[in-house]
């Protein structure tokens, strides 16, 4: 009797421990955010100011918009979309090209351009079951070449393309304008994307079935989930948010070019994994991803404040990625999930 009592007590304690571990996996990234903020405050008095924080959030807004979209793919166990940079470049360049028809048409056509790549990815990966990394890498190469061929390697400029139309100026302002007083539009869009993403992932049939797919593709299939359609939808959603990010990026750069968006694929995956989504799939959420994005933003900001150059920053980010993936795999194994 007494031994039984003891073992149930132990049982309860370790179950609490497991729950704590799960919680840590879900939102633990915000501890890192707090840690970075504390560290930043210590090393520079310029750090803890409203304007600096606005800078940080604005700097990562595009990454946030992109990463939430890509996180659908990670969540489904299909790793990532390596065609993210080319989708950003393509949507941006098409939007610039269409700016002469007005700003609304320009934005819609830009998103449609990125979406078209997403639709192809959705079909080839969702339906034909191509390897997501290899396929999206191939798409990135082909589309990159196509854009350079189509524009003869040239960049195009919104102010030139608009032919004096006011839309050119609006396009450039998209990434610079504030709404509700001093809230940058980009940041507003990022929060909206995060909220929609969080709801989609946790409150809808799509999200719940995506989790099942990410946890065990075959089991999801044998539970009657339409796996092709659901995985395809993840790639389509990713391409849409990536296009929105691409249009903002192009607006910020004031130029549509094939090289826009370089590095966003890798940064997005780093933010996603930092945010508690395992590459194995089926774990994590959009709010966590946002935390990952903030972490990267704080890291860049602090490194810039203490005078680390961009090349070294890239190295640091790469190393962090490796460490995070390692810790992630290890903590999952500790929870008894060998398959993660």
């Amino acid at each position, binding site marked *: 009797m007494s031994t039984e009592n003891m073992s149930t007590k132990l049982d309860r304690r370790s179950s609490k421990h*497991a*729950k704590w571990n799960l919680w840590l996996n879900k939102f633990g990234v915000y501890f890192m955010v707090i840690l970075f903020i504390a560290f930043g405050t210590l090393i520079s008095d310029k750090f803890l100011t409203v304007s600096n924080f606005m800078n940080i959030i604005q700097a990562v807004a595009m990454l946030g918009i992109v990463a939430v979209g890509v996180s659908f793919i990670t969540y489904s166990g299909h790793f990532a979309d390596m065609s993210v940079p080319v989708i950003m470049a393509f949507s941006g360049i098409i939007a610039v090209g269409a700016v002469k028809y007005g700003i609304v048409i320009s934005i819609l056509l830009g998103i449609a351009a990125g979406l078209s790549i997403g639709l192809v990815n959705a079909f080839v990966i969702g339906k034909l079951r191509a390897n997501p990394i290899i396929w999206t890498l191939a798409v990135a190469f082909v589309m990159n070449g196509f854009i350079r061929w189509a524009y003869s390697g040239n960049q195009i400029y919104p102010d030139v393309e608009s032919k004096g139309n006011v839309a050119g100026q609006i396009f450039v302002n998209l990434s610079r304008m504030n709404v509700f007083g001093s809230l940058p539009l980009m940041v507003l869009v990022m929060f909206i994307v995060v909220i929609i993403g969080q709801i989609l992932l946790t409150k809808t049939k799509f999200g719940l079935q995506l*989790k*099942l797919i990410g946890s065990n593709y075959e*089991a999801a299939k044998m*539970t009657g*989930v*339409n796996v092709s359609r659901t995985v395809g939808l993840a790639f389509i959603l990713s391409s849409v948010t990536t296009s929105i990010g691409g249009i903002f990026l192009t607006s910020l750069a004031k130029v549509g070019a094939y090289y826009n968006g370089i590095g966003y694929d890798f940064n997005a995956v780093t933010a996603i994994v930092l945010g508690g989504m395992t590459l194995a799939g089926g774990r994590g959420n959009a709010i966590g991803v946002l935390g990952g994005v903030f972490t990267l933003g704080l890291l860049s900001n602090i490194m810039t404040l203490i005078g680390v150059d961009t090349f070294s920053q890239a190295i640091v980010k790469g190393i962090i990625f490796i460490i995070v993936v390692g810790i992630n795999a290890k903590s999952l194994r500790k929870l*008894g999930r060998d398959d993660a």
Partner: protein
Amino acid sequence: MGENKSGLALSMNHVSKRYPGTLAVDGVDFEVCSGEVHALIGENGAGKSTLMKMIAGSFSDYTGEICINGKEVRLSSPSIAKENGIEMIYQELSLALSLSIAENVLVGNLPTKGIFVDRKAMVERTRDRLKRVGLEHLDPLMPVKDISQHEAQLVEIAKALGNNPCILVMDEPTSALSREEVERLFKIIDSLKKQGLAIIYISHHLPEIFRVADRVTVMRDGKRVGTYEIEEVNAGKLVELMVGRSVSEFYSSRSTHLGEEMLRAEHLSRYGFFHDVSFNVRAGEILGLYGLAGAGRSELGRSICGADPIDEGEIHLKGQKLAHKNMGQALEAGVAYLTENRKTQGLALRLTVGENALAALIPKHTKNFFYSGKDDKPVLDRLISDLQIYPPDPSRTVGNLSGGNQQKVLLSKWLSISPKVLILDEPTRGVDIGAKMIIHQAIEKLAGQGNAVILISSDLPELVAMSDRVVIMRKGHLIGEMNKGEFNEETVLLAANGEGGFVNVN
């Protein structure tokens, strides 16, 4: 040598291992002598596999003391276990199918000449090892995929013997073997025993244990119940020890109320798998579907539920033609299929009991785009108590549950939507007696509520006891059917082999 108990090969003193939430092995003492076959039995979840994983060096965080040949060792990694002469043979073979026998047997220490593999030495060494397991007739250069299942099992043993182990652990080594092959394996085990090897033999089949073991240790709930000389015990006693209660009525007789025809298959074919199959099943009926491996049973089940296509023929559900293009549509109509492969196709092991059990309910509980979880809790509570899922906590990760409880979760996924027709493919494979009884009761209850059940099972006692009617498949054809009272284990098996008397439906 050859003398029992010539020395302790392995002794484990008060070892324990904790998973999050469960103490899988709880202060167990276990010992094996050289030249002894020591059987280890227990229900799924009793802690056998965890104890064996401990011996194999899978855990670095166990507590207690392990001695090998009298010397204390810390088995914290698989390579340390191997160095100490421990070899495992698992249920699932670990051979690389496209490589040759020789490459598989000598993996990790292929003989080399300079930087190249020395093929001649490789062949010779492999032949030596194959001789020890009675496979001298095999060509060492043959790829493993070309040899039979039984030979592969022996090759696996030859591979393990190559490292000159002193302790050999065999986990259900006969699950894929025929009767004669099992006998041949036992002869080899006998000869290994004479060579002084300590063998730990894990099995669910009690007759095998009485044939091969010298002593038997029974485990229950992570603890050792006792160790007995094999002469001291009989099958009934062992079952009682494993289950912890006496199993008087294993299969209860149930009264069946057959209703109207629920599902009718008309001339179904899927080219290359099954041909011109016609049968029906009525409401409240449990229809047994039997056939030897490769007869097309599972393929038929998968096609009916929409997981695989149908090339010809029609399915009628309650008199209406079922025109499903995929599993989702079949499910909507009320036809579900419980896969035989729990781990790869059945459950998402990383998710919780609740998430798995409710997986099939997601579309039903989605209204106006949003999933409503307000009905989740009562449904879950009912499933967990009906199937006595242990631990009764829906937030547990399924992968940490025992095999029997995993199987219950898998079944609960379909019970949650009460399908009109449920096709069960090996619903109790590798499941202990306690869980089996609960699963059988749940199946009978489902049928009793006026649903139809198609039971595919290789477990003849189960099939015979559960079914109201049995249909037999052989080589892709449905060759006959037998009604309650007309069949027993023997006639069903004979029919599946194309012999014996049965009603031919064609």
